[in-house]
Every structure is written in structure tokens, then in C-alpha cells.
């Protein structure tokens, strides 16, 4: 896979409601606060707001810890006005990449000393659809989507 191929997920910054650069340890807390208020504004249930904020927190930390810097993109998706609303989160970095994606997503596996290794597997359980693409030396893209539940 070459560089160009890795970018086959087209991210048009203008489509996203929130674009955040993760560079500082402090940005992790900022990203989860922004995700939280964005989900709240879009009438997600309190539990789902917390799940979205937690997922974003995990994604930002992964960027900060492994890639040093990267981006978090968040947008609201609607199939029809007021029907089937969802929030899409993308974490993108050009860091070292993940060697064994399957193992990382399965959980209980970590390359970092101070971690439970539950980051990626946790995110996958918190949200409704999950996509990850990673290549060693190129970077990692994670796409996560959470639908708003009816009633």
C-alpha cells in the first residue's frame, strides 16, 4: 500500500462540525469536553453522551501517546431531518501505525506500560460502528459512529 492509497478515506475538513488538533496532553481533556457538549446539543441520552465523550478521550489519548500528534474530526449525520441522527468521529494520525490491528482491537493487549490495553476494544463496544485502518510507518485512521436511540 502506498501513501496515496492510505488516504483513500477522503476527509474533507469542511464537512466536519469539530476539527481538533491533538498535540498536548491537555488536548485530551479538551477533546472529550467538546465531544460531550456536541452530543448533548444533539439530544443524545446522558449515557450515550458519556459513551461518546469517553470514546473520544480514548482516541485522543491514543494519538497523543503513540503518534504524538494528529486530528479528531466530529460531525453530525442525518439520513432525513430529525430521523436517524448519528455522530461520526474520525481519529487520524501519521504516526507509527499499529503492528497487529486485530490484537489491538481484541483488547487486553498494550505496548504501553501504563495502560489497560482496553482503549480500542472499549471504543468498539461503546459505539455502533467501528472501522480501523493502520499501517506501520504510515499512520492510523479510526472511524466510529454512534446512532441516537429513539425513545
Amino acid at each position, binding site marked *: 500500500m502506498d501513501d496515496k492509497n492510505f488516504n483513500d478515506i477522503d476527509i474533507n475538513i469542511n464537512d466536519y462540525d469539530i476539527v481538533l488538533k491533538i498535540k498536548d496532553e491537555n488536548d485530551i481533556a479538551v477533546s472529550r469536553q467538546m465531544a460531550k457538549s456536541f452530543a448533548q446539543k444533539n439530544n443524545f*441520552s*446522558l*449515557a450515550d453522551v458519556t459513551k461518546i465523550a469517553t470514546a473520544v478521550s480514548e482516541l485522543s489519548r491514543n494519538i497523543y501517546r503513540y503518534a504524538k500528534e494528529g486530528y479528531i474530526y466530529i460531525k453530525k449525520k442525518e439520513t432525513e431531518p430529525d430521523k436517524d441522527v448519528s455522530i461520526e468521529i474520525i481519529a487520524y494520525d501519521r504516526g507509527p501505525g499499529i503492528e497487529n490491528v486485530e490484537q489491538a482491537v481484541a483488547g487486553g493487549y498494550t505496548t504501553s506500560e501504563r495502560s489497560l490495553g482496553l482503549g480500542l476494544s472499549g471504543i468498539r463496544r461503546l459505539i455502533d460502528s467501528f472501522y480501523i485502518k493502520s499501517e506501520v510507518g504510515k499512520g492510523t485512521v479510526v472511524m466510529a459512529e454512534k446512532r441516537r*436511540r*429513539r*425513545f
Partner: protein
Amino acid sequence: MKDVVISRLGELVEGLAKKDEQKKAWEDFLVEFAEVCGKSDLKEKLKAPISNLLDRISEKELSDGIELLHEKLDNFPTVDVYKAIIEALGKKNDEYLVKIAELRDVLSELSTPIIHLWQDVLLAPVIGTLDSQRAQNMAEKLLENIADTRAKVVIVDVTGVSMIDTIVGEFLIEMFSAVKLLGSDVILTGIKPEIAHTLVKLGIDFNMVIIKRDLESALKYTIGKFSKGTEKKQSNTKRGDIDEN
């Protein structure tokens, strides 16, 4: 047009319907129709009469009737009438959708009651088919209730559940560990053979949950534990007193 309708009212109504009830419905409609006929913005003015007519006769009877009127009356404003019918039906459909949403809310409220059984004891009887949506709603409601009431024990009774799929099973396990994180105990009762089968296949950690055969033994256990708890509390107070001195 107005005069024609009024003068032929009896004849038209006879042709439109057989039963008295429907005849009356058509008669009322034709009178109202004659009133607005020929005026500007006919479609808007026809909406109310059509909607009333639809409440009293079926859609089939309506379309047959309009066809008849179209044939019998010259210059019958068929297009405007049909526009009004479509809009009236659309409005009715919207009303039904709202009603369905309301009923769904009521259903979810009714199907996941949480009962304050005793001081520090909540009962959550689960009834009917659990899907992941309902399981999540129930989990949210139950946890909020525990946080508000500071209940020490939650009895989850699944006697009314005939089947659990793996996804719902996972949600239940998550709900139980969340309850534990709040610092409360879970007692699970009323597990049917099929559910026991699913739960074991899922690899549920039975150590996390206290399982009792039925509600009766769950209650006995809870009360036993509860009174033990009070004894301990008393001894604690004594200890506290000594500390203070």
C-alpha cells in the same frame, strides 16, 4: 353548481350510499361542498369537509363516491377534491405516526417498571421480549434509580422473559457490572432453561451476580442480609464512639 348540488341532493345521496349512516355522511359533505363550491382556494376549504367524511366512511367508499360525482355532475372539481383528499390522508398518517411514537414510549415505560420494594431494595421485573434498545433503556433507567435511591440491592426478575439473544445477554452482563460499580448488589431470579442455556454459553461470570431460584427466595435472602447489615451498623456505631473518646 351550488344550486345543482342542492336540488339533486336526494338523488345523489341515494346513488352514493346504501346505509343510512353513510348517506348522512355524504349529505353533510355535499351541503358543505355546495357552500364552498365556486369560491377561490377551493382545495383549502374542502380539507375540513373531506377530513370529516373520511372519519365516517372508508377510503374505498370515498373514491367510488367521488368517481360517481365526477360522472354525474358537470364541472365537478375532481382535481381539487383529490388534492384535498391526499392532503387529508397525509395529515391523518402523520397523526398515526405521532400516536405510534407515543404508544412506544408508553410501552417502554410500562415494560420496564422499577419498584421500590423495601428500604434499600429495588425490584426490576423484566417482561416481554428484550431487544438491545430496550435493554439499554432499562439499564439507564435502573442505574439512575439506584443512584437516586442509593439502593443496596437490586432484584432483577426475568420470569417474564422467554428468550434472550447473545447481544441482549451481553447488555445484561454489562448492566450488572455497572450496578456493581455503583456499589450495589444484583440478585437475578426467574431464569428459564433457555435463558440459562444462553447465559452459560455467553460465559457469564456467576460470581458477580447472586442467583436465586425465584422471587421468594430472593426476598428471603435480601431480608436476611439486610437485618445482618443493621446489626453490623450498630456495632460500627459502638466502634465509632470508642474512637471519639
